[in-house]
Structure formats: C-alpha cells, structure tokens
C-alpha cells in the first residue's frame, strides 16, 4: 500500500480577481521508503503540490491520504526542507537548530543534544555543531536543514528544490550526500526539482508535471543501480526520456 496517495487533487486560487487553477486532477502514490521526484517547468504547480503535502495548503478538490487517512494540516510525520537558506534560525547554532523539532516534542535536553549531534554527523557536520548559520556556507546550511528535518523522525521527507541555489559542484556533492542519507534512514521522500539530471540521479520514480494547469503528464520508474553514474549511457537515456515529456 502507498504511504502517500493523492486522489484527484486540484487547487484553485484567486489572484487579482482572476481564478487560477494551479493543480488539476493530480493523482499518484508514493510507497514506503520510496524516493519520488516531481519534475516540471516553473509554474507547473510542483511547489503548490509540496505545500499541500506539507499541510500549508488544502486542496480545493480531491484529497491526500497518508497511511490511509485523509491529511489535515501540518504534522510531525512530515519533515520539510525548503530551498531558501534562510530557513535556519540565525539565533541558534547548528545543533540547536537541529534540536528544534525535538524541543517542540518535549524531548529532554541531553537526549535531544545527542540526537542532534548524531544527525549532524550523518550529514558530515559533526565539527560544526556550535557554528551559527551565518558562519556556514550555503551547502552546509542546507545540510543542517536536512538534519533538522530528519531529527524528530518524521516518516516522510518533503524537499522543495533544496539545492537549486547552490553552485554546480556543491550541488553534486549534496546529491551524493542525500542519496547516502536516504539509504541510511530509509525515509519516504517527495523531492521537487526542475533539474532533470538531479531527478534521474536521486529518484526511484519521476513524476513529470506540465503547467497551465498543473497536471501529471507521465511517470517514469528509474531502475538504474545505485550509486548512479551520471555519465553512463543509461543515465543519459533516462534524462532524454524525461526531457521529452517536459
């Protein structure tokens, strides 16, 4: 059974007096521990879709099921990583940022410090637990954000182009790191991106969306063995297939 199931999800909003259909009849499922990338051009509603999954928005039609139950609002069963580096709290050190979710859950101090350090180690930042966000590079900040989203142990990780603002080399490192983290933690991941190579590198399955209104055009299951080689012919074949549908 799918952990997340979108059933004919539509989302409509009003801008300047005009009604805009951002999503129309979007339907797909995400299995337990599956890594699904949602790919599409800007304006295809992929961020709207993620906001619905995160619980910031409610579908105007259709519904989202999570573990078989209709999704209502936000919940600690989902962790979110945004694109914006500013998502970290500047007044907290890396470790205290990662502790935030545990703090909200009422986890005792020692335990949350230990957990936070464990997840910072997982993303390779064990030497930077005491650093403030502004002392870290963009890539490191996003790693802290990933650790923060994982630390309170949600079963689903939602990611909105977390590496889009990074330079190309750092982005590749981050993708490798995320693939490792995913293998370690076995979270269910919904990852939104417009970067085709990124999607082919990371995903078990790619959901391709097209704009006006945002609809699912096709889905491609990626069967390449991991770790994947972005320079292999098979990898490029997948990229071609995705691009053809965009």
């Amino acid at each position: 059974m799918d952990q997340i199931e979108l059933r004919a999800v539509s989302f409509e909003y009003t801008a300047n007096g005009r009604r805009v259909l951002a999503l129309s009849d979007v339907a797909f499922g995400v299995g337990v521990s599956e890594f699904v990338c949602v790919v599409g051009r800007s304006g295809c509603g992929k961020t709207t879709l993620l906001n619905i999954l995160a619980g910031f928005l409610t579908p105007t039609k259709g519904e989202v099921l999570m573990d078989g139950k209709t999704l209502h609002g936000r919940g600690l069963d989902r962790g979110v990583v945004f694109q914006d580096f500013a998502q970290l709290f500047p007044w907290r050190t890396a470790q205290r940022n990662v502790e935030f979710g545990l703090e909200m859950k009422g986890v005792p101090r020692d335990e949350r410090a230990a957990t936070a350090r464990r997840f910072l180690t997982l993303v390779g930042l064990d030497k930077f637990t005491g650093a403030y966000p502004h002392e870290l590079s963009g890539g490191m900040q996003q790693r802290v954000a990933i650790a923060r989203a994982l630390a309170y142990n949600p079963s689903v990780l939602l990611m909105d182009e977390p590496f889009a603002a990074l330079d190309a080399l750092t982005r590749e490192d981050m993708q490798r790191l995320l693939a490792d983290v995913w293998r370690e933690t076995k979270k269910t991941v919904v990852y939104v991106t417009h970067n085709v190579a990124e999607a082919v590198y990371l995903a078990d399955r790619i959901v391709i969306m097209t704009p006006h209104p945002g609809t699912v055009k096709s889905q491609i299951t990626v069967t390449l063995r991991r770790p994947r080689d972005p320079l292999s012919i098979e990898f490029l074949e997948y990229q071609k297939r995705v691009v053809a549908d965009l």
Partner: protein
Amino acid sequence: MFRASATLGLRRAAWGLAQLAFPFVVVAIAWEAFAILGPFPPRLFPRLDVIGSTFVRLIATGILPLHALDTILRLAAGFALGGVVGVVVGMLMGRHRWAEDLLVPVVSVGNPIPGLAYAPLFVLWFGLGNLPAVLLVGFSATFPVIVNTWTGVKAVKDIWIRAAQVMGAADRQLFRKVVLPGALPYVLTGLRLGLARAWRVLIAVEMLTSVSVGLGWLIFGAREFMNTDVMLAGIAVIGIVGLALEKLVFERIEQFTVVRWGMMQR
C-alpha cells in the same frame, strides 16, 4: 621577534588613541581660542582649565556623582517603564490585527510629538518632583520602542514561521522561540532610540518639574549664580553617561546577540 611585534602593537594602540583624541583636541583648541579672543567675559565663557578644575572639584566633593546618580535612577525607572510598555504594545500590534488597526494611527500621531511638549500637562496632572519626570520619560521613550518592535515582528521571516510550524511549534512556542528572537534586532534598535529620547527629555524635564536633585536641576540652578563652569561640568557628565550607556550597555548586548547571530553587521 616577540619584542618587535609588542612594540608594533603598542605603536598601533597609541596611533588609535591619537586618532580618537584628535577631534576632541581640535574642539578644545577652538574653545580656548574663543574663550580668549571671543566677545564673552571669562565668567560667561570659562576656559577649559576652569571647567576641568570645577569638574574635578564637583566630583571630589561628591556633588556631581550625587546629581548624576539621581538622574540615572530616574532614567532607569522611566526607561524600564517605557521599554516594557513599548515592547508589549509593539508585539501586540505585530501579532494582532485589531491592535494594529487600533494603535497605528495613534502611534503615528504620537510618535513625532516631542515628549517635552507634554511636560506642563504632566506637571498639572502629577504635581512636581519625581513622578511626572519618570512618567514623562517613560511616555517619551515608549514610542520608538513600539514602532520598532512592531516593525520587527512584521519583519520576522515567513520561512522561519513555516519551518517552526512544520516542526510542530504551537502559537506560544512560535512566539517565544521564533518571533521574539527574530524581532530582536529591531527591538534593540527601538530600545536604543527610546533610551536616547528618554535621556534628552529627562534632562529638560528636571529643569521644569523642580526635582530636588539631578543633573538637569544642577545645570538649571547654576544659572542663578552664573556658574557657567558648573553648567558645563554637568553637561560633560550628561555626555559621558550617554556615551557609556551606548558603548557599555547597548553595544555589549548587540555584540552578544544579533551581531553574533549575523543578523546585524558591526
């Protein structure tokens, strides 16, 4: 090697000190020149050595510290009042639409009015002495604190709120752990402006509400006997206290919080 770098450091420190002192030296020379060549008799425009010796004498006899202490206590009381009210009201305005709608017009009108304009009213309402002085200081200080706190709450980044909500922060936790620290750079700016206003209005109001002791009163009283040296010594203390509050209190707090967090450059 060590000695060489030590003398270098010493030289650098001396140079820094000289740079800091230079503007004051220029002002001092201009003052002396005016005192000697200018139209005022020495009684009205005393030379620096006279002011200096009066300053030392007034400190040694405990007169200046006594007045300064009273003024500082009054400032602390008034500023604490204005600061607390300002932060609370500013937060309310930033967090609740009704408070914003209700108070923005009031604050916008009240903010630009110099606090001193209310002094006669406060005297009529609260009599003479400490009470009207403290209340007026608090009243004047509160406006910049309100405006900046309100702006600060509005400037709290949406993404911080969203990130915190995703991690399960309820309203109260959101306020304490995100809005409060997020708005801090603005709140500190507001407090700093409020303190500057409080300090200004306090000195003036001491002249009007006939408090028994205080720097404002000292300066005002000295006029009776044309003790210009006493007046200038009092003014010097006002400058020193103001500078000390800025450097020792506000810069320290900022250094320890918003500057360390990279939310404000220094």
